[in-house]
Structures are given as C-alpha cells and as structure tokens.
C-alpha cells in the first residue's frame, strides 16, 4: 500500500511535468517522454557505454583504494593507542578541508590522466571510511572483549570475532557515504578536466547546446549512483543479517 502511494506520487510528478512541457517549456527543460526517448536511443549507441565505463573505471578503483586504506587504518587507530595518537589528529584536523582543491596539485604530480583522478577520489573516500571504522572499533563494548578474553580468545580472535562484527554496521555507513562521495568527486574531476567519462560528456553537451545529451548523461549518472547504493544496501543485508537495515 505504502509502495503504491509512493509510486503514485512519482507518476503524478512525471505526468505534471509532461503536461507542463505541452504548454511550452524553455529549450533546456526536456519533457520526461523526450528524455526517455533520447536515453533509449543513446543506449543503442556505443559512446554512452564507453563514457560510463571510463567514469566507473575512475570512481571504483578510487573508492576501493580509499576505503581499504581508510577502514584498515581506522580500525588500527580504533584498537591501538599508538596508531590513534599518530593518525587521528591529522585526520580530524584535515577532515573539514575540501579535498578537491588538491586536484590541481595531483595533476601536476601524477599527470592529467586517470591516476590523479583516482588518487583524489581515494583521498575523498578515505575520510568517511576512516572515521566510521574508527568510531565503530572504539565503540566495542568492553564487556564483550573481557568475556572473550576470559574464555581464552587470542588477540587475533578477539579482533576477528568481536571487534570487527561490532564495527561492521558503522563501517557500512561509512562505505555508503564514501560511495556517494566517489561519484561526486569523479563527476567533478571529469567536468574540470577529462577527455572521456560522463562528466566530460555533460560538459561537451553543454558547450554544444545539445540538451538531449545533457539529460542522457544526467540520467546515466543518476542510475549508476542509485544502483551502487542499492548494491551496497543489498550486500549490507548479506553481511549483517542480524542488523535491521535503517536507511
């Protein structure tokens, strides 16, 4: 019932938009049917897949590198005081700094190709991954650690069987933020300078006033972002069967 009502809202919005476009909208606002038509037409061409693939080939490695480093170091800082004292001040101090400003510098060091983009995406993803893993590991109830130790668990066992499962919900929350961030930064870097990718496609469409292409690129990035988020939620359910998902 709830589903039906939500679907109804969406349909009403789309119909209202379509009706508005019948009365004449400015050139840069396409009607939903037009967008769908152009999108389906673009799906039949080769270019869209190339650009989508180029974008994913930047966002996903950056996301993976940033999250692996962030989760690893975050967990280490969460359980070991020496890591905590060394890393946490730097991470929390630089956290509110917009990481995208490092892009020009990275471009100088690593070239204007994909490496600098992947590095900046990894840097942006590192922060939410680190902070959430850190808090997740730190929030492990002491009682659980004590009882595990009491029952003769080794350090490694305590980490694997107590700390890690306890921190997983928080780690997933961090992954979700990082995934959204990786798409934003990917798009930003491609709009600033790139020769391929969805960000480049939208810039090119803008410069040549091809509004249909703009909406195709927009819709593609929206679908990719949504699909990634769904995939993450699904894997969360798979890895955390005991946790009720609250999105």
């Amino acid at each position, binding site marked *: 019932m709830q589903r039906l009502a939500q679907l109804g809202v969406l349909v009403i919005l789309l119909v209202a938009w379509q009706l508005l476009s019948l009365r004449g909208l400015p050139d840069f606002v396409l009607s939903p049917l037009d967008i769908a038509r152009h999108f389906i037409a673009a799906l039949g061409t080769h270019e869209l897949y190339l650009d989508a693939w180029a974008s994913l080939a930047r966002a996903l490695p950056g996301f993976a590198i940033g999250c692996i480093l962030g989760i690893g170091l975050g967990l280490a800082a969460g359980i070991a005081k020496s890591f905590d004292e060394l890393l946490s001040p730097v991470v929390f101090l630089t956290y509110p700094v917009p990481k995208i*400003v490092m892009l020009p510098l990275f471009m100088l060091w690593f070239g204007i190709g994909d490496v600098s983009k992947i590095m900046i995406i990894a840097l942006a993803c590192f922060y939410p991954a680190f902070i959430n893993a850190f808090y997740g590991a730190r929030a492990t109830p002491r009682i659980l650690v004590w009882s595990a130790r009491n029952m003769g668990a080794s350090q490694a066992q305590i980490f694997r069987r107590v700390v890690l499962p306890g921190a997983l919900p928080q780690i997933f929350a961090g992954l979700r933020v990082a995934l959204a961030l990786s798409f934003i930064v990917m798009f930003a870097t491609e709009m600033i300078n790139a020769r391929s990718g969805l*960000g480049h496609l939208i810039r090119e469409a803008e410069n040549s006033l091809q509004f249909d292409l703009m909406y195709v690129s927009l819709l593609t990035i929206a679908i990719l972002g*949504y699909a990634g988020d769904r995939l993450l939620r699904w894997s969360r359910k798979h890895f955390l069967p005991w946790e009720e998902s609250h999105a």
Partner: protein
Amino acid sequence: MKRLRPYVLILVALVAWEITARSGLWSPILFPSLERIGGQLWAFISQPEGFTQTWTTLYRTFAGFAAGALVGVLLGMLMGRSQFVAGLLDPVFSGTYAVPKLALFPIFIFVFGLGSLSKIALIFLECLYPMTIITYHGTRSVNRVFVWSAQNMGASRAATLARVVFPATLPYVFAALRVALPVALIVAIITEMISSVDGLGYLVTYSLSSLKTDRMLAIVVVISALGLALDHALVALRNRLVYWEKLDTYYV
C-alpha cells in the same frame, strides 16, 4: 612533549616537503618551498584583492548553506511530525540521495545564469539532503514520553513543537549542519573551478594554468583554513546552544 605528539605526522610531512623542495631533484614548479608558499600567502592576505575573492566564495557558501539549512530543517521536522508528508517525501530523498547533484550544474547554469545564483542553487540542493534526512531522523527519535507529558499538561500542537520537539531535535540539527557546511564549501569551490571568473576555486585553477604553483598552494592553505575555521565556529555555537548534551566527537 606529550602535547606535541598529535602534531608529529604534520611536522614530518612539512619537513619532508621542504627537503624535497630544496633537494633540487624536482622543479620548483612541482614542489615550491615553504618559504615561497608563505610569501605568496602573505601577498594574498595583505592585498584587498585576496579579501574580495575570499568574500565571494564565502558569500556563495553561506547563501546556499543558509537556504539549504532552513528548508531542510523545516522539511525534516514536517516529515518527522506528519506521516503523510514523510510518505510523500521519503522516497524522493532516499531515491535520489546517492545521485550526484553536481550533474545538475550545467542545467542550473542555463536556468540561473553563469553568475553566483547557479552556484548558490547547487549548494542549496547539496545541503538540503543531509539537513532534511538527519533532522527527520532526529525528530523521529524524540522521546515519546516527553511529548506525551507535554500534551498531558495541556500544551498545544505548536507549543509541543516549539518547546519539546525542536529542542530535542537540536543536537541532530547541529550534526546535520556540521555535515552540510563542509559540503557547501566544497561545492562552492568545485563550481568555481568548473566555471567562474572569481572566487577562490577560480584562483586555484587560474594559478595552476599560469604555473604559479606556489600561489596555488597558498590559496589551498587559505581554503583549508576556511574549512577548519567554519567547522570550529559551528562547534563553538553548538556547544553554547546545546549545552545539555556533550558533543560526542574526538579532537574538536
């Protein structure tokens, strides 16, 4: 000695930078020395031009942030207090949450023009999401007993909202503000880097294309300082207004 420990890594990084810069292995364009960056920083701060550019960026950041915060808090509280509004808006927000709003920027340029307005509109949109979602969760987690007792003592709907629900949501609102403010600054910088003729983001790309790396890094330092200062100001404000709840963060 113990107090200095948190800064060890930063100090090591600075020393490593200076050694790299002075080793002569790389061109000073790639690694300008701290001295040159400092000189450019001073030049930037001491001239009125630097102040104007910083103000342009801050103006865009604050305008979009304030609008996003205001609308987001209102929407979030409405969603929290009304099942109908929540059913209407929740799918919209959770469905489009993971979509990069930045992709709308080219369309915004056509709608709102090349100037500040298209940037402010995008900042507004990016801030709206965390503000609405976190406020919504906050309103929903208000202790029911408080609401019941207020109603029991004859408080009107408006009074319950203003005296019970709003203060109880305030910690969440500030949590949302702390998420949204850096986002606002980031989006301001990104949009200025993509298309602008003024602001700090523009200066970064401009300095790079004229290969003045020392100047670019000086501006990066300014932007970083702004991000830090804004966050600290927000935390200070929060601790004054939400004095009954200690901030559950580290190192701030």
